[in-house]
C-alpha cells in the first residue's frame, strides 16, 4: 500500500516559514492499494493540493472520500477540492451518518459562508454512503473503529493483502475501553497514523479536548505491536522545531523497542509493505 500525506496539521491551517517543513494544512491522506485503486481520508485544506493533482490529465472520475468525523478541519477543503466542480465526476462521501454528512455539506456551501451559494451548484455528483461496519473498496478491506473524540469519530484499519495501516485521528488516548478497542483493531499493523497534537505537559492543560499527547500515541503503538508509528495532527502553534523535538523525544522513549517512529509530513509518500 502507498500513502501520501496532503495535510497533517490539526485544528486550523497554520501556514508560514515555521511550519513549512512538516506542513501547515489541515488533514488529508491518500491511500493507494496494491491494485492501484485509491481513496482519501478527510478533506481538510490539504485536499486542495490533492484535488489539483486529480484533475490534471486523465485520471479517475470517481473519488472515494472517507470522513473520520465532521469537524471543520477535516472537511473545510471540500469547497476547494477541484473534482467536486467537474461535471461527469462523482465524489462519494463515506461517514458515520449520511444525514449529518449531507447537512455538513449544506453548511459548507450555504450562501452566508460560500460564494458557491449552495450544494446544488456543484458540477460533480455527490453521493453519500453510511459506514455501518467493515466494507470493501476494490482490493482494500476497511474496518471502522469508534475513537474517543466527543463526537462520533472513526478510526480505520485498512488492508490490501500486502500490508495493514491503521488511521487514528482525532483520538484522545487515555480511556481504557477506547484505547483497547483501538489497540485490538490496530494489532500488528505495518503503520499506525496516530493523533499527536500535544506534548504531555500541554495535554495536562487540554485534557478532554479530544486529542492525544506523544506518550499516548506511543503506548497505543506499543500495545498494538505495530511496526511503525506516524505522529499526526500537529497543534497549529507547533513549529517545525517543536515537531522535531517531539519526534526526537518519542524516538528516545522507544529506543529499546522494535517500534520505528516518524512524523507525518506534507508531501511525504510512504510505501508500506
Amino acid at each position, binding site marked *: 500500500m502507498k500513502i501520501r500525506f496532503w495535510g497533517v496539521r490539526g485544528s*486550523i491551517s497554520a*501556514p*508560514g516559514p515555521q511550519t513549512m517543513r512538516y506542513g*501547515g494544512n489541515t488533514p488529508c491522506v491518500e491511500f493507494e492499494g496494491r491494485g492501484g485503486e485509491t481513496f482519501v481520508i478527510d478533506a481538510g485544506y490539504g485536499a*486542495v493540493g490533492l484535488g489539483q493533482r486529480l484533475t490534471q490529465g486523465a485520471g479517475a472520475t470517481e473519488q472515494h472520500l472517507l470522513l473520520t468525523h*465532521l469537524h471543520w478541519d477535516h472537511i*473545510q477543503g471540500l*469547497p476547494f477540492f477541484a473534482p467536486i466542480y467537474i461535471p461527469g465526476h462523482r465524489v462519494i462521501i463515506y461517514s458515520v451518518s449520511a444525514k449529518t454528512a449531507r447537512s455538513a455539506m449544506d453548511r459548507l456551501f450555504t450562501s452566508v*459562508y460560500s460564494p458557491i451559494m449552495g450544494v446544488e451548484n456543484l458540477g460533480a455528483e455527490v453521493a453519500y454512503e453510511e459506514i455501518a461496519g467493515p466494507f470493501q473498496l476494490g482490493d482494500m478491506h476497511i474496518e471502522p473503529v469508534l475513537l474517543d473524540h466527543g463526537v462520533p469519530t472513526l478510526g480505520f484499519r485498512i488492508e490490501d493483502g500486502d500490508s495493514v495501516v491503521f488511521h487514528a485521528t482525532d483520538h484522545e488516548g487515555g480511556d481504557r475501553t477506547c484505547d483497547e478497542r483501538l489497540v485490538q483493531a490496530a494489532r500488528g499493523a505495518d503503520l499506525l497514523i496516530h493523533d499527536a497534537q500535544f506534548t504531555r505537559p500541554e495535554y495536562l492543560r487540554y485534557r478532554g479536548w479530544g486529542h492525544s499527547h506523544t506518550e499516548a500515541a506511543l503506548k497505543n503503538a506499543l500495545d498494538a505491536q505495530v511496526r511503525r508509528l506516524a505522529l499526526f495532527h500537529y497543534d*497549529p502553534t507547533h513549529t517545525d522545531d517543536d515537531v522535531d523535538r517531539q519526534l526526537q523525544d518519542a524516538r528516545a522513549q522507544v529506543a529499546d523497542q522494535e517500534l520505528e517512529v516518524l512524523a507525518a509530513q506534507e508531501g511525504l509518500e510512504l510505501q508500506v509493505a
Partner: protein
Amino acid sequence: MLVTFWGVRGSYPIGRRDNVRYGGNSTCIQIQAPGELPLIMDGGSGIRVFGSTLLDGPFVAGEGQANILVGHTHWDHILGYPFFGPLYYSGNRFTFYSAGQAEADLPLILEGQHEELHFPVPFDELRAEMVFQRIRPRERFKLGGFTIEAVQLNHPGITLGYRIEHLEAAVVIFTDTARIASVQQGQGMAEAVKAEGLQQFQRRFSQELVDLCRGADLLVHDSHFLEEEIVGKEHWGHSTALDALALAQAASVRHLMLFHHAPEHADDVVDAKLALTRSAAAGGTLKVSAAREGMAVELSENKK
C-alpha cells in the same frame, strides 16, 4: 495610523514552501492609532496569529476592548474567530460591525462555526462580551477618534468595503470585489439594475467606489486574478491588479496595496503581478505594493 497585515491570502489559507514570503493566512488587518481602541478588519486565519500577540496585556487580564469590522462572512474571512484567543477571556469586550444578511444575522453565523458537529468548543465558551452592531452603507460613524464609512462591494451576498480615517490619515479596504462592467452580483444589485438601468447603475456604483477612495493615503484592494486568468471567471467576485490600479488612479490615492492574493499563486507570481502593476503606474505619483503577512504601513496623520 498604523496598518498591519496578519493575513493577505484570499479564498482559503494555504501553506506551501513557495508562498512563505507573502504568507498563506487568509484575511486579517489591524488598524492602530494613538489613544484609540484596536480596530480589526476580518477574522480569517491571520487573526489566530494576531491573537497570539495579544496574550500578555489587557486581553488576558479580561480588560481588553476592540472593534471588529466585518467585510463579509465567507469562510476565508471568519474561520479564524474560533482561534482568536482574546475571545475566550471573560471581561474582554468586542464590538462587531457588519451589514445585515438576509439569511441570518452575524451572531448566528459566528455561532454556526461552533456547532457541536463541527467544532469541539461551544460558542458560549467564548467568555468575552460580544456586541453586534449593524451598519448601513454610506453612513459615516465614529469609533472613538476613527471615522468609518462603508460601501457595498460587488461580491455575492452583502460585502462591505470600509474607509477608515484618523486625523488626516485615511485607509480604504476593499477585500473582495468584482468588475461592475462584467457582473452585478451583490445582494440587491439585480433589483437596482432593473430599477435604474444597467448603465446608470454601473456609473453610480463606480462613482461610489471612487468617492469613498478619494485622496486616501492607502487603498488595500482585491487583486486575486492575473489579467489572463479572469477571462471566464468575472463572476467569481474578484478583481485583477490592474482593476485595482484603475480605481486607485481615478481616486487619486497615494499608495495602492495589492491584497487577497489567490491561494494558488506562488511568491514569484505575486512578484510578477506587482511588477506589472508598477510598470502600468509608472510616471505617476502613485506608490504600489503587494501585501505581505507581518507588513506594517505607517500613515501620516498630520499632512502639514
